[in-house]
């Protein structure tokens, strides 16, 4: 269960951004919409434990995330949050497999071994791309690799920021199907920020909670 009340954040010399209160059940789906500058990215950053709210409370699975210190936030994010950013941020200096291996290194988790990485890629149908560099992948392939990275450690909360941007209809549909199926299979809560009509139409069937900022 994700619950936030009176949640607000202020950037240096910026206005106070307030967010409407919300409760989201385990395995739920939140569709986040809004024009640029309305605080969409800020809310995603708060949920991803990258920012600490200046006011209000944020409880995720019974953990008061708003009261965690910087080290605890890092550890909490590593364990419980998977992020699929709009720009995928796959490093071209590394192979696909090494990009995924960063998940284990960042979290100092030795259980993320080669077998686990290959299994994660295989689940998304891209195991054969393990030794390729990200710049050698198509948009859809790269999106799947980034999704495998986000889901690798079985997060309780998956955040996808414009997951279909720059994908054609077929690729967008495939990614959305995978995103929904994989998060549901893990019982994870999915938060999707989007402007894309295709996303809204596809996810409408799952009866999402919609929040328009």
């Amino acid at each position, binding site marked *: 269960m994700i619950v936030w009340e009176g949640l607000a954040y202020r950037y240096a010399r910026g206005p106070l951004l307030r967010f409407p209160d919300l409760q989201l059940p385990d395995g739920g789906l939140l569709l986040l919409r809004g024009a640029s500058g309305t605080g969409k*990215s800020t809310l995603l950053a708060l949920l991803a434990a990258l920012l600490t709210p200046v006011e209000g409370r944020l409880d995720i699975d019974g953990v008061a995330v708003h009261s965690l210190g910087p080290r605890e936030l890092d*550890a909490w994010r590593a364990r419980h949050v998977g992020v699929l*950013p709009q720009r995928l941020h796959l490093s071209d200096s590394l192979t696909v497999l090494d990009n995924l291996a960063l998940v284990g*290194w960042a979290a100092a988790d030795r259980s993320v071994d080669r077998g686990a990485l290959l299994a994660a890629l295989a689940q998304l149908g891209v195991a054969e791309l393990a030794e390729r560099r990200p710049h050698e992948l198509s948009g859809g392939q790269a999106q799947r690799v980034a999704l495998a990275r986000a889901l690798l450690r079985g997060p309780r909360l998956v955040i996808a920021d414009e997951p279909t941007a720059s994908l054609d209809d077929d690729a967008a549909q495939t990614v959305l199907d995978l995103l929904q199926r994989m998060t549901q299979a893990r019982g994870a809560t999915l938060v999707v920020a989007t402007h894309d009509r295709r996303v809204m139409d596809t996810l409408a069937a799952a009866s999402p909670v919609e929040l328009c900022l």
Partner: protein
Amino acid sequence: MNLARLSWTYLWARPLVTVLNLLLLALGLAAVSVVLLVSQQLEDALKRDLAGIDLVVGAKGSPMQIILSGVFHLDVPTGNIPAESIERWRAHPLVASVIPISLGDSYRGHRIVGTEPAYLEDRGARLVQGRPWAAPLEAVVGAEAARRTGLAVGERFVGVHGLGGDGEPHGESPYTVVGVLAPTGSVIDRLILTSTESVWEVHEAATALDDEDRRYLEAEREVTLLLLRYRSPLAAVSLPRLINAEAGLQSASPALETARLLRMVGVGTEVLRGFGAVLLAVAGLSVFIGLYHAVRERASDLAMLRMLGAPPSRVAAVVVAEALWLAAGGLAIGLGLGHGLTALLGWWLEARQSMALTGWAWASGQWAVVAATVALAGVSAALPAWQAYRLDVTRLLQAPR
């Protein structure tokens, strides 16, 4: 994935910058290493060659020339002094010991030195074959001289007049090798040693036309230098003045002359050392610029690490590790190059029978160079690492512009 592998991969993602940084570091380290290796070995060699010699007495002339010719066997002597001065100075109350040195001939570029067996003991030489000379025209060969000339116990050889190796051979007075010395790392390795009487005999045989000539030469016998050891430190005050007051005699203090020599050589080594330090500073600046730009270019990669849960210190460690890889690579190449160049210089000097120099040595100052290089890498990485530490991760969630 581990820190070493990740930083190594990032390092070689920009091969041109990495190679340039490695090259700059390596050149600076090589220059500093050569200077340190050469100066330490030079100082060690000087100390070994000078050990136990308090004063050198020769013919009037340059004290530096006396030291160079009589102790290091690099220069020609200033002349000869009467042989009777050996016993006269030996009897002096301020003098503990006197060892005569007679120069004049050589064999294949190696000086034939007429002296007394005490010289062997005084220089810490040890025989590996045979025995010391006991009669005129018996010789003991230094380790390096034996290796280069192939002389062994029982063999005979003929010296040539002069120290350059291109003089008239003394064919009528061949020497017999009776001993070979173990290597000492000092100048004695390059010498062929015999009795003072041998040198007199060879030259009298070569110059005397008849018995009268021979008797005259025997009465006027000379040696080239005397190596003196003081009985007490007080002798250092008065003995040089006493000697210099005598007609035809010149004293030379090894301590003073080598200090002067090292000061002269020191200017060159300081210039080289300074050049190496400048190269290292430039390398440090280059590493800093490289890492600074790398962090800017790789900001999203590093921010992604934060997004995946890496604490800021872990992200900053990637940048520091890159700098340390550069330092390690620069040290490996630079020290290898420095030692290689020193070995090459040693080989060139050996061919000219000059000082012994090896690349297989470690100068104590090199530990400081290693520490300074690691510190340099750390300092160069400090600001880029701080940038990485303070990365704004929320940018990852912002729409591309």
